[in-house]
């Protein structure tokens, strides 16, 4: 895999400061760059005080849900009766998202340091880093970094294990991930109980995303106030966020910006906009699971949790998928539906059958065999796939369908009316 681009002047590099810096991968190199100072500092503090700093910083989960990290840590039982576990979600599988991969590739010790701090804060004695099966290079790098960190005694009495997934998207769902670590089929669990009460092996567990934990050392080192100050719009969204931009832009890649940065600036200034002669058509701002934005919505959208919600989508994982005017939205949405149909764990009826049926209808529309009533059927199906299941996989399949039909109905109707050349699918 290649080297990342040089940071754009408008980027705020915190997490990505050492991307491309090979020396930063080693323990020695990381220490030279001020690494593990935050950990030393945290270990001198009471766990509750560490949690308080993170709470104060306003850091929110970077995996997609945006839950306040400090608050999540504070849910762990105050009185310790059972072993506590920390799970690190490095199963980055959301289509369009590739930020955690880069953190692990370039700054594995940032993740390990954040892991050690979090484990201290929640008083965990064991941490599992669950790495996506396809991430061969990050796996190798993480293995090496962990060996170095262990040799340097970074974790003290805390045991850290790397656990490799087998490539199932659903194992990125927190409870499915725990089942997977336990050696079971990666099926999401019913909540409650929530992980803080009964998580991994039935014990109190906190699970955090890679990017979230990598942001913890700078917060401790530079202070909650500094992190909180990194905010361009809504004060509820603080700090920096890595955005993985892919699709129809001239310079795709990971870009780190302050919360509240305009999406337009990210796409046009940093990524160079669509290829020459093309115009922007649509954008999925937070990984494939969130609703699609039109050009107008995209160009007026601010990149923080509230800003994207205001436009009718979600910040999600920060995987920005860009479509220019050459994109066939019906085909793109079919590909998304097919992905979810393939990855459904098969537990809930709506998801197991609904994602597959949705895909079949989309394929039929593309093949020119669609019927007018198919659109209403898709919407009704999506309605019944939203908020009815254990996890949100089926909601994720429905989101692009609903927003796609709403915003690009003309393209669907062109297929239905036979005005577009049918596409070979399957």
């Amino acid at each position: 895999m290649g080297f990342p681009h040089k940071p754009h002047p408008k980027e705020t590099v915190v997490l990505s400061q050492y991307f491309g810096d090979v020396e930063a991968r080693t323990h020695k190199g990381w220490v030279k760059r001020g690494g593990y100072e935050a950990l030393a500092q945290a270990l001198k503090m009471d766990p509750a005080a560490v949690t308080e700093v993170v709470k104060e910083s306003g850091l929110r989960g970077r995996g997609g849900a945006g839950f306040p990290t400090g608050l999540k840590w504070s849910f762990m039982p105050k009185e310790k009766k059972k072993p506590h576990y920390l799970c690190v979600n490095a199963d980055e599988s959301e289509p369009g998202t590739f930020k955690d991969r880069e953190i692990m590739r370039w700054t594995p010790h940032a993740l390990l340091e954040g892991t050690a701090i979090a484990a201290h804060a929640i008083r965990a004695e064991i941490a599992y880093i669950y790495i996506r099966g396809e991430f061969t290079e990050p796996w190798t790098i993480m293995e090496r970094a962990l060996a170095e960190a262990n040799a340097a005694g970074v974790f003290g009495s805390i045991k850290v294990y790397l656990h490799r997934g087998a490539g199932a998207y659903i194992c990125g769902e927190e409870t499915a991930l725990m089942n997977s670590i336990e050696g079971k089929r990666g099926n999401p669990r019913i909540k409650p109980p929530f992980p803080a009460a009964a998580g991994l092996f039935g014990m109190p567990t906190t699970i955090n995303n890679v990017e979230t934990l990598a942001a913890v050392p700078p917060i401790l080192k530079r202070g909650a106030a500094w992190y909180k100050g990194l905010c361009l719009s809504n004060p509820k969204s603080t700090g920096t966020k890595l955005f993985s931009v892919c699709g129809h832009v001239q310079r795709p890649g990971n870009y780190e910006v302050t919360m509240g940065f305009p999406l337009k600036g990210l796409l046009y200034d940093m990524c160079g906009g669509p290829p020459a002669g093309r115009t922007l058509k649509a954008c999925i701002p937070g990984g494939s699971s969130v609703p699609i934005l039109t050009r107008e919505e995209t160009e007026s959208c601010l990149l923080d949790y509230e800003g994207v919600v205001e436009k009718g989508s979600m910040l999600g994982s920060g995987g920005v998928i860009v479509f220019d005017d050459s994109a066939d939205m019906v085909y793109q949405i079919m590909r998304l539906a097919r992905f979810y149909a393939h990855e459904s764990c098969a537990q809930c009826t709506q998801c197991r059958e609904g994602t597959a049926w949705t895909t079949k209808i989309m394929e039929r529309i593309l093949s020119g065999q669609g019927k007018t009533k198919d659109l209403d059927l898709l919407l009704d199906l999506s309605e019944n796939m939203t908020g009815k299941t254990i996890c949100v996989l089926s909601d994720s399949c429905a989101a692009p369908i609903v927003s796609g039909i709403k915003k690009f109905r003309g393209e669907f109707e062109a297929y239905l009316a036979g005005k577009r050349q049918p596409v070979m699918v399957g």
Partner: protein
Amino acid sequence: MADGMINLTIDGAPVSVPPGTLVIEAAKQAGVLVPHYCYHPGLPVAGVCRMCLVEIEKAPKLQIACATTVTEGMVVKTQTAPSKSARQSVLELLLINHPLDCPICDQAGECELQDFVFQEGRDGTRYGEYAKRFNPVEDFGPDVLYVPNRCILCTRCVRFMEDVAKEPVLNVSERGDRAFIGIHPEARLDHPWAGNVVDLCPVGSLLSKDFLHKARAWELDKTASICTGCSQGCNITLDTRDEVVVRVRPRPNLEVNRYFICDHGRMHYKWMNRGDRIEAPLIRRDGELKATDWDEALDRVAGILRGASGTAVALVSPGASSEALALAKRLLSGFSWTGAFQVVMGEEAPLPGVPNLALRAERAPNAKGAENLGYSRDYARALEAAKTAAVVLVLDDPDCAVEASGALIYLGSVLGADAPCRRADVILPIANVAEEEGTFTNCDGRDQRYYQAKPAPGMAQPAAWVLGELTAALGLAELTR
């Protein structure tokens, strides 16, 4: 309202239930059956079929009744538009890959998919002309067939094998709509309790080979009975079609067998349909057994008993009802009496997930009852005593190695060609367990009643009736202490 109880309202009906009760169970108390597939009270909650979605006031979205515990003041609505439409959608989705082969499916008539679709499903499908998922029928075990096309993946079978039988040979294989129930490639579904997966399956996906195409559900008459396979005393239902027992199913009893029966018990019914039965009383006349009517036969026995004195021996079956056993004892109360039974022993097979539930080593339903009534387990001694006894009464034990020099009276349902009881002076035909009403005492001392499922053949009568007539004839009917 009782102390410590949680009060809630379900479809307008107030109910009080203990804390920790699931909404779906509380609803049953309010007389509301929330449609469901994956939930089963005998299994851990899975929450996967999403059929039991109900509206709960103040909850932001529909909740599954099977995984939501009651809270004080909760208001549950099962019949609102969102809840009904969610269920209708689940039903439609469950049917898109379903073969709709009800006319040839054993489950038809007792199929929860059929029932709930009939109750609240859509009039037609919107699935259109797409091909349905197809997987061939699989042979899972000695008595279990898996028809994947009908499977709704409720995972009851998987959870039963994993959490109750503790032999996790089944799983959900594959993902998405390609999923099916898989079996370990080197395993068979041959656990001694595996047959329960057939009962647990809410649709016709897991079928009993034994019951395959034997009857339609609506042709069956159901009778509450007690399993005679061992001394556990599992509560069962005898399913009869045209007075033939065709199936045995567990009848829930939380104190004895919960929702389950073992395969031994499940298969322990064919003898109830035996055709080679004694159909008329037989008495020895001129050295040969001759058929006669009940009056003459009973007179003959009464005469024998009146004319004899000294010792009497009763060799009884531990499968006889307590009523018959008590009357047999009373009938011989004028004699110096010995009564004994013998029990066939087998291997014990517990169901690990349920405490105190096993296929017991004692393969008889009423050994405890016989013992309580004073019958001895020392069968050999009784056989020895029989040699010189004035009267020997054999109750339903046709193959017992009896040698009698005195009078031999046999009450039984069958009589083999070489059976020692052929030497009896009188043979009285009796009903078997499916043909009479009676009581068994299980290994824990629990008295349990069973009922008549079919008529006895010919002139056969329940043993308790026969022995009752005889005690009356001898003037022993009144209880004397």
